[in-house]
């Protein structure tokens, strides 16, 4: 590399200063990479805030897993793994007792106790983004310094799911007032708060420098409790690189060691390239279209909805538009979730679709409007165009509008088109969550069906979902949720397209395969770099 630089500098007759410059860079880069324990990573965006409770988003959770630790966390197989909670047991129908790990140090030096956990839980209840997750809970009580009881309002099956969202914060560190006289614990959406710029957790990394939108630097926490972790990354330099092509180029040219997301167009290239490795997983975010029954009389007829589902070749979309980087589906929850029913498979059949249209009395078709975002989901606008083309074949003329997500969401809230695209990831990693937001009868008071722009409403589905909330027997609960998927499938409640796959790429020797997961928060504390 140095010789190359020299040659270049000499050949183009640059000033001596420039030559020195090249040499200096060459030398500076050398030793740093030789240590191999600095991980230079690039994501498409950097965290909005250091406050883990400000925004419920992938970026916040990724950061939380670096700087904080949850009580329990997901394994790659979607099981639970003890973290700050060493063990747990169900005391009665409504209570789960968590035993906390002892001797866990915060970055500030203090020890983590039950008070910190309860303090954090109380703060979560004040977060507009997070409090919704905890509505089934009544209280969290301290038993002793390292034991808490978490009490629900009634029997609740997802206590551990929600425990993955509790990342104990250092209550001592966040107490008192900051330099401006505001309480350090203040939680504000768009404010210059102490917590949005400072952090103390128990996690594997501390933040050593941060320039928002440019880079974040992390260093391994010397007193990290998990001494059994194989992780050997001592420093992380995190750079957001917005542009897909540049992010891939940065990996291929060796400027960074680890990137995500990887655009579908570059998957093959990274896989074939020597020196880089690709890790992919079938994702959990379902992409769907909803058919608005309040706007269109036609959509009230299940036959028309079925015709639309039969007319859309979602297997073809996954193959051609998504380049195989998606798993075509016929239900809401992906495989691995309680409600997944293997017998429900994509059902593209154009002849049958035409027959259904004729049976419903719409042989001549009709015209509808459709809207989709163009920068929210992978290839969203292209998918919408393909769907519009497929519907034309059964006589449904589509007037399609695509727009950036910033403009799309207000339109979605208005239910501004007859068919609208919506993707959904269940933040509880559970099947019921899809129905609660997408297919339950819309009800402003309970918040059910908040994203049900189709206004599909079946009291039976509502009843089943409500009963699943209090069913703590896993087998019975799975049967209930599978019945829901079957009903939605039979009635063609919505148009299922596919689950978006996930991809990460790294230079060879960076063991990302062992630390990534479908939730897309890599456990970088456990990352091994050769």
């Amino acid at each position, binding site marked *: *590399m140095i010789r*190359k*630089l020299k040659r*270049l500098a000499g050949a183009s007759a640059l000033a001596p200063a*420039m030559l*020195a*410059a*090249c040499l*200096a*860079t060459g030398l*500076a880069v050398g030793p740093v990479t030789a240590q191999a324990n600095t991980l230079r990573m*690039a994501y498409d965006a950097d965290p*909005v*805030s250091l406050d883990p409770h400000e*925004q*419920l*988003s992938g970026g916040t959770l990724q950061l939380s897993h670096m700087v904080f630790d949850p009580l329990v966390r997901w394994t790659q197989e979607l099981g639970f793994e003890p973290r700050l909670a060493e063990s747990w047991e169900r005391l009665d129908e409504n209570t789960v007792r968590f035993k906390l790990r002892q001797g866990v140090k915060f970055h500030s030096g203090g020890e983590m106790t039950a008070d910190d956990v309860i303090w954090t839980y109380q703060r979560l209840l004040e977060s*507009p*983004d*997070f409090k*919704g*997750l905890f509505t089934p809970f009544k209280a969290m009580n301290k038993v002793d310094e390292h034991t808490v009881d978490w009490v629900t309002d009634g029997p609740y099956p997802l206590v551990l799911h929600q425990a993955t969202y509790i990342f104990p914060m250092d209550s001592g560190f966040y107490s008192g007032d900051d330099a401006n006289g505001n309480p350090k614990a203040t939680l504000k*959406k*768009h*404010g*210059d*708060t102490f917590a*949005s710029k400072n952090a103390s957790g128990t996690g594997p990394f501390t933040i050593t420098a941060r*320039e*928002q*939108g*440019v880079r974040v630097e992390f260093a391994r926490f010397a007193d990290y409790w998990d001494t059994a972790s194989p992780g050997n990354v001592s420093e992380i330099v995190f*750079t*957001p*690189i*917005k*542009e897909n*092509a*540049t992010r891939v*180029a*940065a990996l*291929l*040219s*060796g*400027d960074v060691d680890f990137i995500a997301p990887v655009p579908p167009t570059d998957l093959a290239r990274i896989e074939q390239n020597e020196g880089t490795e690709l890790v992919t997983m079938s994702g959990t975010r379902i992409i769907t279209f909803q058919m608005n029954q309040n706007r269109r009389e036609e959509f009230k007829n299940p036959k028309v909805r079925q015709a639309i589902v039969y007319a859309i070749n979602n297997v073809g979309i996954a193959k051609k538009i998504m380049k195989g980087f998606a798993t075509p589906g016929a239900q809401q929850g992906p495989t691995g979730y309680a409600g997944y029913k293997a017998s429900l498979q994509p059902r593209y059949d154009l002849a049958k679709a035409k027959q259904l249209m004729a049976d419903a009395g719409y042989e001549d078709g009709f015209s509808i409007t459709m809207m989709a975002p163009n*920068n929210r989901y992978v290839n969203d606008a292209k998918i919408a165009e393909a769907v519009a083309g497929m519907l034309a074949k059964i006589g449904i003329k589509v007037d399609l509008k695509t727009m*950036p*997500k*910033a*403009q*799309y*969401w*207000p339109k979605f*809230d208005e239910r501004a088109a007859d068919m609208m695209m919506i993707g959904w990831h269940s*933040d509880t990693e559970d099947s019921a969550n899809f129905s609660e*937001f997408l297919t339950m009868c819309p009800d*402003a008071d309970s*918040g059910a069906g*908040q*994203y049900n722009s189709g206004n599909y409403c079946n009291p039976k589905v509502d009843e089943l979902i409500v009963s699943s909330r209090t069913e703590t027997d896993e087998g019975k609960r799975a049967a209930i949720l599978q019945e829901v998927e079957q009903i939605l499938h039979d009635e063609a409640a919505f148009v299922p397209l596919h689950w978006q796959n996930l991809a990460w790429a790294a230079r060879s020797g960076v063991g990302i395969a062992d630390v990534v997961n479908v939730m897309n928060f890599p456990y970088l504390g456990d990352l091994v770099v050769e």
Partner: protein
Amino acid sequence: MLRFLLRRLAQAAVVMFVISLLSFSIQDNLGDPLRELVGQRVSEAERDVLREQMGLNDPFLVQYWRFLGRAVEGDLGDSYFFKRPALEVILDKFPATVELVLGASVIILFFSVPAGVYCAIRPRALFSRLMMGASIVGISVPVFLTAIMLIYIFSIQLGWMPSFGRGETVDVGGWGTGLLTADGLWHLILPSISLASIMLPLFIRLIRAEMLEVLHTEYIRFATAKGLSRYRIWFLHALKNTLLPVITVGGVQIGTMIAYTILTETVFQWPGMGFMFLEAVNRVDTPLIIAYLIVVGLIFVITNTLVDLVYGLVNPTVQLAGRQE
């Protein structure tokens, strides 16, 4: 002169006012900022509470009046994303953009003048024809593509150049500069070339056309007849008059170039104002969008004023607006 500057200042104030009004009135069409601030499961009712707290539910005039009141005091509001005064965020990003524009300007200046002059003096030479052909291609290839190609060739294939970012910077009196470190200069090369790629062909063609015209004027023929050396005629007499319109266009183009940095900065993840603006639009960070538009408007006014002043110095026959009557 003073009168000219005062008049310009008044014009600038009007321009700023119009920009602020326009950008303020389009903000509702940019999207809902709340959507970018909260997670997907937060209900509309709760979003509305937050909207109310932020004063976004107030009537347009109330909001605008509040904005004007603060703007007069130099406060253009806080960025939602950066959680800091928008103007402060822009000033932080300003050096990166200025240095990028400077890098591109240096490239343009050093290549366009010799190339343009040569093409005018030897219009039929092979090099001139190649140059003219290449400049057409240069004008038509989008910056985006040029930048990606440069990264592909020099970063991925050859491994010579860094693929993104600004490299190491040092702080000189509040101005974070990359011009003083080797790493910083190294990172500046590819982005500067990309940014220059649109303007360079334009300037070569402009200089060539102007020079050709000047070479056909009476006084040049007279000078030739008088027996002056060809080089003296070309580089002293002809070039001077060629550069007059070039200065005008150049001044205006510097403003345009600052706008063009949006694409270059995005591809190279260059932490400047252009990239910041694009991100602000994506995030519906309205205070930052409005502040950016006002600052860019101000830059246009300032560069145009400077061009007028310089023009007056280069060509004494031109009178500034204030002296005309």
